[in-house]
């Protein structure tokens, strides 16, 4: 089964789709292990760049928590039908895993993880159809790819860069699948910026 095609083929059992996505979680577990080990390593060495790394991780955590809330808005909008609805829930689950990893790593580094806001602002008045919701999600995912791409080179601890790159890969897959669901070329260019 094609990873990219199931969204556009409602006949495909979403349990198969979930298995495909769960298959991706090896990447995330690897990222988690790397990040947590990086945190312990940094603590042991008392690295000076730790404070900067914690700030970067906390910014990423804030964005992940917002993404979780955004997918919740999309899922509860009534605009998404299966299989797009299942897709949104799977992607939201990934963001929850990212947030959990980031939060644990921040704590390991001696920082205080940011909490989810009690309220987020989303352009709900502009979400009138399933395509609007998917386009909004795609916009956030594309932004997330760029944000992680911008964060990878600025970590003091290179292991954290590796963990951030692992998340970046997941966000890029989200973006591509959402574009495919919208009928757009899933991978529009050879490079991301």
């Amino acid at each position, binding site marked *: 089964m094609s990873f990219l095609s199931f969204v556009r083929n409602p006949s495909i059992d979403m349990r198969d789709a979930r298995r495909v996505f769960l298959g991706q979680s090896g990447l995330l577990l690897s990222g988690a292990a790397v990040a947590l080990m990086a945190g312990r390593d940094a603590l042991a060495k008392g690295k000076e760049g730790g404070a*900067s790394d914690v*700030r*970067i*991780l*906390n*910014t*990423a955590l*804030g*964005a992940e928590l*917002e*993404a979780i809330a955004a997918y919740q808005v999309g899922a509860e909008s009534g605009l998404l039908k299966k299989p797009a609805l299942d897709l949104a829930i799977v992607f939201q689950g990934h963001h929850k895993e990212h947030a959990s990893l980031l939060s644990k790593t921040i704590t390991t580094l001696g920082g205080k993880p940011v909490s989810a806001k009690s309220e*987020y*602002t989303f352009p709900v008045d502009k979400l009138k159809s399933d395509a609007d919701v998917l386009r909004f999600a795609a*916009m*956030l995912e*594309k*932004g*997330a790819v*760029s*944000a992680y791409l*911008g*964060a*990878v*080179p*600025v970590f003091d601890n290179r292991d954290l860069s590796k963990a951030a790159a692992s998340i970046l890969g997941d966000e890029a897959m989200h973006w591509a699948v959402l574009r495919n669901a919208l009928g757009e070329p899933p991978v529009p260019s050879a490079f991301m*910026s």
Partner: protein
Amino acid sequence: MSPKTWLAALSCSLPLWAAGGAWAAAPAAMTGDAARGEAVYSRCLACHALAYDRTGPRHCGLFGRQAGTVPGFAYSDAMRNSKIIWDEKTLDVFLQNPLKAVPGTSMGYAGISDALERADLIAYLKKENASADCKGK
């Protein structure tokens, strides 16, 4: 320039100067293209929006605003104390390397190294700031 004015100008520039010299070396900003800048702005959309605060602060009302002063937004101490007034030049310096321009900023982003991309982004932000969507936001 009177001594009083000179001192006031000096005190305003000191925080920028102290931030590692990035500001003092700022060249004149290029003229950008707003249409291309919209594509560059898509990189910002994980954290920012024009009209409302997200992980980062809103961009409506950006030009002429002192950094760290959007009411209710939780800035880093570094940004709040930077005394930067956002305009084409200060944005150009900041966007090139945010962590160098304002050490301690929460914007953990490597920056936009291409001068034309920065100019395009700034042109887009200026255009949007002048639009009806940004009025009063």
